[in-house]
């Protein structure tokens, strides 16, 4: 049901024209469309606990929506909203956590800011410093590549302090916070740069201390959610390519009738369906982690697998899509190029596919054995 309503709504309201228009805005986000989604469809409450006005669902439902949003390149901050909800579910209960859940449920945009200019996409990347625990903390430093940062009312800031990595809740209009919009190669998804200069944070706004493990888990959750967008993006690129080659006539027949073209399309579908199978597994694993029936290692493995597969898949499928479009594939007019750009951006976000494979290799070859690799579903 979620799937059908998402398809219907996005088909009507997130057309190519809407996406291209949003790309012209400084923030890159269509806030009017986001208001309709939050008010009419309520997707933002999916992963919010029931006690905080949410549906208490998890990654399985989020990936269904994110696949559809990825397929339309929809210019709304749903990924940021969903990720914030998942991150908040990994931190200890506190009044600030409840307040943020309720704000998210009301449609507020909350963005995750955690890394600097040379990201390692792990705790090493955290360069914002925090001093002054356990009293009022002072944050200084910079976080880059913040998705939906330009429209966020609230920031989740990872910072380094004496006790390791900590997570803070910071209003984006707090004194000392400056948010700069950065245009991107992927024109349909903008990023922001957050600078914190002497930002003072009340003790109640420290969501987690000693948060290195939580950061690892959060990044794995982010990889799984991001993979859903990649699978959706790849599926749509495949569909629009098959439609195009079915109309384009050369040598007196549609180019879809040539095996050289058909076999490329078959390889595209092979990759999309393979990535989708892994995605569904990874989403189930993320939910199992939330329920305490999967450990960090299982989540890390699932995230690395799906990030590698979905990243390679989206890049291959959108790139091959351009190739099969021929000359028009490299024009601004045709949408396939927008999907290619999104695929490139998502492939690099949170670590390239080869970095994911190296993380897996460490688990398989360097550490203790992964137990029951086949049977552990």
């Amino acid at each position, binding site marked *: 049901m979620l799937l059908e309503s998402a398809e219907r709504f996005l088909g009507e309201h997130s057309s190519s024209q809407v996406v291209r228009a949003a790309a012209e805005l400084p923030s890159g986000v269509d806030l009017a469309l986001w208001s309709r989604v939050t008010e009419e469809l309520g997707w933002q409450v999916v992963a919010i606990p029931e006690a905080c006005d949410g549906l208490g669902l998890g990654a399985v439902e989020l990936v269904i929506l994110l696949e559809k949003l990825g397929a339309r390149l929809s210019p709304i901050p749903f990924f940021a909203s969903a990720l914030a909800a998942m991150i908040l579910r990994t931190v200890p209960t506190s009044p600030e956590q409840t307040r943020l859940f309720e704000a998210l449920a009301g449609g507020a945009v909350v963005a995750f800011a955690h890394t600097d200019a040379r990201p390692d996409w792990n705790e090493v990347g955290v360069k914002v410093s925090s001093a002054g625990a356990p009293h009022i903390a002072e944050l200084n430093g910079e976080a880059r590549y913040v998705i939906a940062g330009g429209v966020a009312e609230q920031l989740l800031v990872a910072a380094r302090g004496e006790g390791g990595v900590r997570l803070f809740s910071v209003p984006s209009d707090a004194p000392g916070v400056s948010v700069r919009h950065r245009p991107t190669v992927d024109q349909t998804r903008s990023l922001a740069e957050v600078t914190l200069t002497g930002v003072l944070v009340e003790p109640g706004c420290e969501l987690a201390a000693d948060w290195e493990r939580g950061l690892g888990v959060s990044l794995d959750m982010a990889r799984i959610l991001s993979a859903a967008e990649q699978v959706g993006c790849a599926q749509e690129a495949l569909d629009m390519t098959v439609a195009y080659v079915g109309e384009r006539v050369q040598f007196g027949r549609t180019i879809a009738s040539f*095996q050289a073209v058909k076999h490329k399309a078959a390889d595209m579908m092979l990759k999309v369906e393979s990535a989708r199978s892994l995605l569904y597994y990874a989403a189930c694993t993320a939910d199992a982690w939330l329920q305490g029936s999967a450990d960090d290692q299982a989540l890390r493995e699932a995230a690395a697998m799906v990030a590698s597969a979905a990243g390679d898949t989206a890049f291959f499928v959108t790139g091959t899509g351009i190739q099969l479009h021929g000359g028009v594939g490299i024009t601004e007019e045709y949408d396939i190029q927008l999907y290619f750009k999104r695929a490139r951006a998502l492939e690099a976000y949170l670590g390239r596919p080869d970095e994911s494979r190296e993380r897996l290799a460490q688990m398989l070859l360097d550490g203790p054995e992964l137990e029951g690799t086949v049977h552990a579903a």
Partner: protein
Amino acid sequence: MQLEFSPADEQFRNEVASWLRDHLCGEFAAIRGRGGPGDEHHFVDERKAWERTLAEGGWTCIGWPEQWGGRGATIEQQVIFNEEYARAGGPGRLGHIGETLTGPTLLAFGSEQQKQRYLPDIRAGQAFWCQGYSEPGAGSDLSNIKTRAEWDEQERVWRFYGQKVWTSLAHESDFIFVLARTDVSQRGHRGLSFFLVPLAQEGLEIRPITQLTGTAEFNEVFFDGACCSPEDLVGEEGDGWRVAMGLLGFERGVSTLGQQMLFQVELDEVIRLAKENGASRQPALRQRIAEAHIGLRTLRYNSLRMLSGEDDGSLSREAMIYKLAWSNWHRNLGKLAMDVLGPEAELVESAPYELNRLQSLFLFTRADTIYGGTNQIQRNLIAERALGMPREPRGDA
């Protein structure tokens, strides 16, 4: 997507596992893990004895209806059986053509007389079957069958003339089912009929085909007047294509998890070797090992998606990619195994050409992307059936 089986199915799993533990030992200990692809010619007598032991325990033909000695097992139970069988190191099944092809074909299209004559011996592990579809001129273009079946009015038998090829284990089997042309005025899938033919007779010769591994699992089968009785025609005369293809659409991946269990054993061996010989420290090999791990897990979740899908007999998208996915994965594993072995990969175990397990894997997996529909045919099927792209026009030659 369901990642777990029901408690009742898990109970069934325990029953299978404990029976196998109790029986796959003693005289059968030597055939554990033997007789799989690339090794099918080994321990044939012992594996036939094992088939009879399986049959006595009620573990052959479990998917058949109870009326014919099966358990009426659900798809899930059949998957579990195959998985546990592989996990226990169960030897390559000599009875699988009879159990999974002849039996279901007869159950769907056979006469009462055919069922009574053939099903009990298959179920009992007493009669072994091989498959007579491919011919030298009918590979990917399977319907281009030239083998003829002629009606001999005097002897009242069908007589066969022609050649089948790639017939696995024909030399160890009792019967072959043959797709032959009964109307030579027809071409393609018209004018074909489906017959059940005994192998031990005049006018039928089996010649082994030596493969690149130096072993011979496949055969050529030559027909020069060999015969079968009119009662051994399955379905109507001229209805052979429908009979032969009838069950393919209902394949829901019963054997996939069992197959993946064998793949995991191979991958584990490659990983163990890489850790031992230091290959695991080479960045390029680390990437490929991780990729192999991801690929195998992808096959698993792809299968679980297939099993969670609608049981309406239609092929889902994930089912349509499965052959292409597993065959490429397995072939790549064979190459990875050689690369992890390093320079040692080039030295055979003993003269003249005794290969070790990984060398054999490397060479034999080149067949995976060819048999059962080549990669090229698989891509055509995906493009035409799943993506709705046009069919290639047929040549007239």
